């Protein structure tokens, strides 16, 4: 099919696209390299440069990267496998605490950052499987409420098991990353930015490869019709668990990264708001479309963390008398709510819907009625 398309498009652009399809991983890496080098230039151009200095923009991009990771991970669970997860922040919390335990004065351990990235991902994946296991028999919205419950339980455990987690005080003074003797500092956001772009690019390559693999097809098949997938030989249970595990491991990565940058972790950082925000990013970006989801995350993070916070300044620049007198900081969540509703009403399929998966989660699978769900999952 690929060859057929490239034959039909002899234009340079078409050839480029065809080549990009044939060498997807390289294209992604190159794309990230371009984006990463262009972004710092863009923010030097007014009006963006008037909001905040460049170093803060770069710092913000590194933070946005955390949410892009989260959104790409949740996309595996919700977008590809069709499992509605409302408690995704739990795995973010697990990754964060994993790093705090591995590299802070609290435990007297100082495991280096890079292996901890892997440890965080593995720990989160393991717990993803454990938390996913009881939910395997559940469908749709029952799954949603149980995952929402897990999203509340995990931070509550970190809060209440204070002997092991310092409870509500949180763990501070966490060590910062180091690379070949080069120490990351809080003053200079550039190393974090570069590292984040690297992690993002590699994660995205991995996710695209997974999506195009046997496993990715199995996820999509389960999303489309679980019973038909099982009847085609797919082990729905392990496949779903793998989706939970891979989604959770991405959140674990994000947690380790965010914590190493913030140097502090507390149980209050992982409320339902985080899960909902990430879900909104996935839906807004266009479920199932990896780069669309990444863009959605970037857009929402920028709205939330930059535009809404700088509204006063923005309207001050505009010199509109009435607007200048309003304190927009007070109303930012009202505006955020309005923005969420407006964006969904305008683009219910998301900004960049993946063309063939536009119908996903449309179907309510009425036709399952005559066949009860497989009853053999756990304990039955």
């Amino acid at each position: 099919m690929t060859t057929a398309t490239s034959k039909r498009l002899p234009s340079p652009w078409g050839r480029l696209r065809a080549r990009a399809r044939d060498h997807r991983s390289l294209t992604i890496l190159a794309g990230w390299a371009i984006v990463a080098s262009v972004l710092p230039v863009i923010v030097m151009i007014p009006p963006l440069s008037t909001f905040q200095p460049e170093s803060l923009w770069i710092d913000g991009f590194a933070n946005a990267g955390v949410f892009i990771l989260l959104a790409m991970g949740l996309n595996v669970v919700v977008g590809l496998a069709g499992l509605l997860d409302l408690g995704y922040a739990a795995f973010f919390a697990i990754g964060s605490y994993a790093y705090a335990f591995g590299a802070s004065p609290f435990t007297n351990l100082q495991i280096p950052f890079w292996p901890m990235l892997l440890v965080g991902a593995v720990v989160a994946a393991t717990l993803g499987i454990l938390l996913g296991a009881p939910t395997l028999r559940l469908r749709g919205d029952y799954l949603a409420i149980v995952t929402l419950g897990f999203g509340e339980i995990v931070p509550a455990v970190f809060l209440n098991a204070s002997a092991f987690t310092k409870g509500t005080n949180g763990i501070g003074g966490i060590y910062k990353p180091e690379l070949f003797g080069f120490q990351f500092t809080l003053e200079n956001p550039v190393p974090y930015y570069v590292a984040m772009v690297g992690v993002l690019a590699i994660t995205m390559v991995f996710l695209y490869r997974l999506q195009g693999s046997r496993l990715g097809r199995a996820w999509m098949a389960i999303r489309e019709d679980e019973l038909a997938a099982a009847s085609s030989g797919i082990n729905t249970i392990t496949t779903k668990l793998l989706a939970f595990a891979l989604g959770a491991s991405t959140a674990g990565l994000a947690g380790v990264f965010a914590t190493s940058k913030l140097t502090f972790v507390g149980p209050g950082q992982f409320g339902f708001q985080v899960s909902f925000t990430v879900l909104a990013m996935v839906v807004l970006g266009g479920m199932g479309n990896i780069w669309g989801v990444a863009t959605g995350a970037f857009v929402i993070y920028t709205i939330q963390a930059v535009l809404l916070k700088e509204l006063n300044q923005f309207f001050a620049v505009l010199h509109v008398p009435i607007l200048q007198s309003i304190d927009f900081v007070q109303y930012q969540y009202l505006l955020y709510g309005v923005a969420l509703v407006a964006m969904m009403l305008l683009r219910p399929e998301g900004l960049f819907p993946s063309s063939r998966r536009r119908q996903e989660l449309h179907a309510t699978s009425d036709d399952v009625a005559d066949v009860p769900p497989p009853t053999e999952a756990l304990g039955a």
Partner: protein
Amino acid sequence: MTVDFRRVIRPVAIGTIALLTEYALLGTQQFANALTLGAIYALIALGYTMVYGIVELINFAHGDIFMVGSFLAMWIMTTVLGLSGPVTNLLNLVGLLSIVMFATMVGMGFIGMFIERFAYRPLRHAPRLAPLITAIGVSFILQNIISSLFGPSPVNVPQIVPLDKFAFMGGKIGYLNVFMVVLAVVLMIALQLFVGRTRLGRAMRSTAQDREAAELMGVDINQTIAITFFIAAALAGAGGVIQGLYFGSIKFDLGFFVGLKAFTAAVLGGIGNTTGAAIGGFIIAFVEVYATVLGYTQWSEVAVFTVLILVLVFRPSGLLGQQLGERA
């Protein structure tokens, strides 16, 4: 109507035994506390379950509709009726309560319909998660409107029902507690009768079963869904009234967590099933009170969700899930 053992006597018997057991374990005072809390959860859970049953939407803004209801009731009592404290004349009290209850329920009903019209109806044929995100957006909007109107601090509600108590079986029970539970039960029965015995109720049930078929049979889908939202929001409004009367203090962000527990209750009982929602509400309240009595208040949320997960692992459609023929 014949009394069918499976449908009526058995559930009533199980319920009675369960309640008596709870009573024996908790004692009068805590039992009354749990019932009162359960009444509020149940009223909100009904709204979740009705909306879900008919449009398959987790209406995350429903908890905030409950919150708005409590503020509307407070505003009616203080600004419109000029009340500030207990009303001791029983006739006056009944009259005032009816006015507040009626006005709040109708007002909230219209707010519910309004939200449905503008935030959910345009997305009826969109991917299923789109309305979920607008629901979250509506929740933000409602919270922030209330917080800019009434301020972010807790706001006092005139407790027009005197907080007097009477001695009962070794404990002291407030008249208000009794009123709340009775009101909740009356509203639930009224809802059952409405859904089961009226033309509109039939339209709602048929729409929930198969929207297209219902439409072909001449049911006005838009109207039916709007009425569902009206009733759901009105019930949440009733919950808001008693929340204010009982606790005497409300806050713009109280909706989320109460709503979350009510939603849990709805799922626990089998979402789409109104009886299940009511039962779920009381179960959640009892679990919470248990956690408190045992000294693990900070774990009560964990306990609530653990119960939910355990129930769903063994009954994936909730306690009464199959009864209404849930669409897998």
